[in-house]
């Protein structure tokens, strides 16, 4: 038994991801394996942090929603071996659908806090081209017969339409405008080189085409207008509101992050990009899963002893614009608040399900560095079958005397 047990500080050292691709035959990763995407991320993370002896890694937790085929065989372990990490480094696979990578982070971070780990790799992958959402699943008939879950709740698009029903103030015009802004913000971030530094170039080979190198995200559609979006079909409901334009697409990609205890980071000379404050998960009605971030955030703020006003930056996953707006409306934050998704979000960049959580963190970490006026930020996402996840982070670069570059913008509630 460990004596004098103490909770240790957990820090986010670094995070990288592959460029995201569009799922399907024409996508950049159509002929690329999901596990290879993870491997390339792990290797880049190791190259970027040469002071970390690989044998010091205590765990490799990799999330995937569908854990078969090239995402099967305990992908945390296979990816570690394929990446060339020492055989002594263990690994496991983890799943909480969209919050897979986020849960990989919180689970291993807990292990660090508890003292079981010093350094971990946590991340996620989803090759939705190889593993379409829900493929191979076999929902228990009791869900239907006992009305445990509304059948509509198994289709994420339907849950988004349901959210519109619950919050009539969130109109299609608002979601489309929000989606256009997401595209524009991502394009601006690309122009300022805020995205590229954390991307791992991935070489891919397609039949009859030869090798190419993928260095940028494939999903973004910069220049999209509200008029463009108004013309799109509403596939989940006739005359509905949710379209391919105001929702994240179907994507392929992988992310990984490096976490450590604060003292190990110091010992090994690893950078500290964020300090973990706390996290929370919460369940909601599956048919309105998009509202999940609200109770998760409530819970996390309470655990942290913070209020929403203390949060200077939000990285919220954009599964659907309506789901983001329901969160913002709950807290009285404007649709175009500059604290929210500064680099745009999943509507523009894509959402390879289990990988997205670490993308939010990597982006928040960069924004922390850019904006020392911010002390706290949060990463949050909604999760299928009715859940939300929120992780609150503290900015190690925080300097109370600085003022935010964007704090003059109207709508700031900080």
């Amino acid at each position, binding site marked *: 038994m460990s004596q004098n047990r103490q909770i240790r500080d957990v820090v986010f050292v670094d995070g990288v991801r592959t460029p995201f691709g569009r799922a399907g035959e024409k996508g950049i990763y159509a002929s690329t394996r999901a596990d*290879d995407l993870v*491997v*390339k991320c792990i*290797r*880049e993370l190791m190259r970027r942090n040469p002071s970390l002896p690989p044998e010091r890694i205590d765990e490799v937790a990799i999330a995937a929603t569908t854990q078969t085929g090239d995402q099967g065989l305990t992908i945390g372990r296979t990816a570690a071996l*394929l*990446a*060339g990490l020492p055989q002594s480094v263990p690994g496991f696979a983890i799943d909480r659908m969209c919050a897979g990578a986020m849960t990989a982070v919180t689970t291993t971070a807990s292990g660090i806090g508890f003292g079981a780990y010093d350094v971990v790799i946590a991340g996620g992958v989803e090759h939705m081209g190889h593993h379409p959402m829900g493929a191979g699943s076999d929902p228990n008939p009791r869900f239907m017969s006992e009305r445990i879950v509304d059948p509509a709740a198994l289709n994420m698009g339907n849950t988004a339409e349901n959210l519109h029903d619950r919050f009539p103030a969130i109109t299609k015009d608002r979601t489309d405008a929000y989606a256009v802004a997401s595209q524009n913000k991502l394009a601006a971030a690309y122009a300022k*080189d805020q995205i*590229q*530094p954390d991307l*791992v*170039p*991935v*070489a891919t*080979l397609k*039949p*009859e*085409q*030869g*090798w*190419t*190198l993928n*260095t940028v995200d494939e999903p973004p559609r910069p220049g999209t207008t509200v008029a463009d979006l108004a013309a799109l079909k509403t596939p989940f409901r006739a005359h509905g509101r949710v379209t391919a334009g105001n929702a994240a697409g179907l994507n392929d990609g992988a992310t990984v992050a490096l976490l450590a205890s604060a003292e190990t980071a110091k010992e090994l000379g690893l950078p500290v990009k964020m300090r973990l404050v706390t996290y929370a998960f919460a369940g909601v009605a599956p048919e309105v899963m998009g509202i999940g971030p609200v109770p998760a955030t409530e819970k996390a703020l309470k655990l942290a002893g913070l209020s929403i006003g203390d949060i200077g930056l939000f990285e919220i996953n954009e599964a659907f614009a309506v789901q983001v707006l329901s969160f913002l409306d709950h807290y009285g934050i404007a649709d175009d608040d500059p604290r929210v998704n500064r680099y745009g979000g999943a509507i523009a960049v894509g959402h390879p399900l289990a990988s997205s959580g670490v993308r939010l963190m990597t982006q928040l970490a960069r924004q922390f560095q850019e904006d020392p006026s911010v002390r706290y930020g949060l990463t949050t996402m909604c999760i299928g079958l009715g859940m939300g996840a929120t992780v609150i982070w503290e900015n190690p670069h925080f300097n109370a005397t600085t003022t935010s570059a964007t704090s003059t913008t109207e709508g700031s509630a900080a």
Partner: protein
Amino acid sequence: MSAQDFHQLAALFPDEVITHSHVKDIALPGVDGAPSAGTFALITLDNALDHRRPSTLGPNTLVELGTALQEQRERAKRGEIIGVGVTGKPYFLVAGADLSAVKSLKDRQSGLWMAQLGHDVYSTLNDLGVPSFVFINGLALGGGLEIALNANYRTVSTGAGALGLPEAFLGLVPGWGGVYLLPRLIGPSNAVTVMLENALSNNRTLSGPAAYKLGIADALFEPADFLEQSLTWAARVLAGEEVSRPNAVSEPLSEENSAAWDAAVERAKKFVEAKTSNAAPAPARVIELLEEGKHFTKAQSFAAEDEALADLMATPQFRDTVYAFLDLVQKRAKRPAGAPDAKLARPVTKVGVVGAGMMAGQFALLFARQLKVPVVMTDIDAARVDKGVGYVHGEVDKLLAKGRLSQDAANRTKALVTGSVSKEAFADADFVIEAVFEELNVKKAVFAEVEAIVSPECILATNTSSLSVTAMAADLQHPERLVGFHFFNPVAVMPLLEIVRAPKTDDAALATAFATAKALRKTAVLVKDAAAFVVNRVLLRLMAEVSAAFDEGTDAHVADNALRPMGLPMTPFTLLAMVGIPVAQHVTESLHAAFGERFHVSANQQALIDAGIKGLWETAPDGSVSIPASTLALLSFGNSPSTEQELLLKTQDALAEEIGLMLAEGVVAGPEDIDLCMILGAGWPMHLGGITPYLDRVGASERVNGKLFHPAA
């Protein structure tokens, strides 16, 4: 030479499996997070087939690559690209020239065009107006590796399987710039290692790390992100990072480098003489190009390379090597002629070895290592059994010490090999092989004893080299399960296994024998039950001619060197000493009994055996050999000596006769099997095509049999 000539050449090969050159523009990542430095044209060589079909270089492939490279040169001129890279499909850069295409070139002019085409295309890599890179992601042999040598920079994967310049082995020269570029890139001594010593040592190849260490590549990256890292490296080089080449030799040559060059040439000459007796023309041409090339300009060397390639492509040695290498070793060896359907094979889960002597020990070790099933050795007393098992365990320890086996594998292998004084231990064996004294009655008694214990399906195998398998089966209750399973010494090393079908052997037993051979990683050839089967019969017919000439009064040096033009791995008397004179005599007697005077039983050899003399030659301190006077005193000679030329001709004719008879008797399915046996069982050179193409070429087939073994198609 013009593009038209090349298209004319390419048109001769409408069925070529083309390795395409796919060009992709890449935004080359900036160095250390800087913005992209510009567009990099990446060419992927891909024949659109899976990993079982390596990409090769035929005329159409080269024309397509040349066209792609010329386009890049134009684009570079227009400032559209900052560099060009070449890489391959997974596991391969390129396996080299399409040998079946090159072999079928009809005339010297076509060969010259092929040589010039390669130079024309590859030279573009060095003249693009922007730096060129080759990313050696996998296997790169011959013309495949030469693509890389012609580029400005190279990276190699730690996972790249086989790199080398096997041209000298195949009967060519590394004539698409290799022989000029390699000594300058990695130094003349290393170049001799790669182009000659490796090539002529069973076509040995280099791993990626070994190639990097020699200086063939400038950077080494792991396979997991080889291409990404190679491109990042290319970006750094394009940004001005220095590339160091410590082994490179720059011109004009320093005094030291000049001396090293001469020393390397001398070493090469000695090596080739020892290895091939200079019987094949290609290695000499490599040395010539290296020696003269010391003072060549690149253009001079390339022109000389073209001529050498054109000459060599027209030689029978090249054609016969391609036949031996491609048609026999690579293809026929994998699908043995006459083998029954593999589905008939029964599983072998336990093996019995009768006997615990040297041969038995070698069998036990091989079966345990390769089949990984229990192996029981038996002998007449515990001491012999213990000694036999002890030998195997000792060999396992040696393999462990050399790092060839892990501790776990060594433990497993030792545990698999046990001994018993009772053949009852064979009760649940599926395959029992005997390694007892070479006498029919002994072997028959052993099998009778074994048959009383094992199941009726258990395969009985004999390693006899000279006895009749048919006679051995005569009194068995289940003669259908007896096969001949004839290994060559040393068992672990020699790749050939002659599998003998006796008249009553059934398909299931034969299929099991072939499946077992495959699991033992041996090449099996099906032979009929005829005295001494294939390899020993051919070898001893040759020996009989030499010993007969010797006995008739031919000078020993003349007798022993007459066959040098064939380039056999050792002289007859050296072979005789290695096999052991008594063994050779014993088998010759069997053959004499079966076939009569064609197999001359030498009274002189019997005299040597009686006196306990193990070999004719005694080596003096200066390396020269002679027969000691004491030995000579035992021998008697006739007075009709042969010249070297006469003995060579006589031997050629004898071989043609013997092989003609073997084919007529149906010993094997065709001359190809004879050739395969001689290459794999006796190490006869590929430039002879084994033996029958050589006999056709020197006229022996027509002189003796009135027809060729391989009539022109």
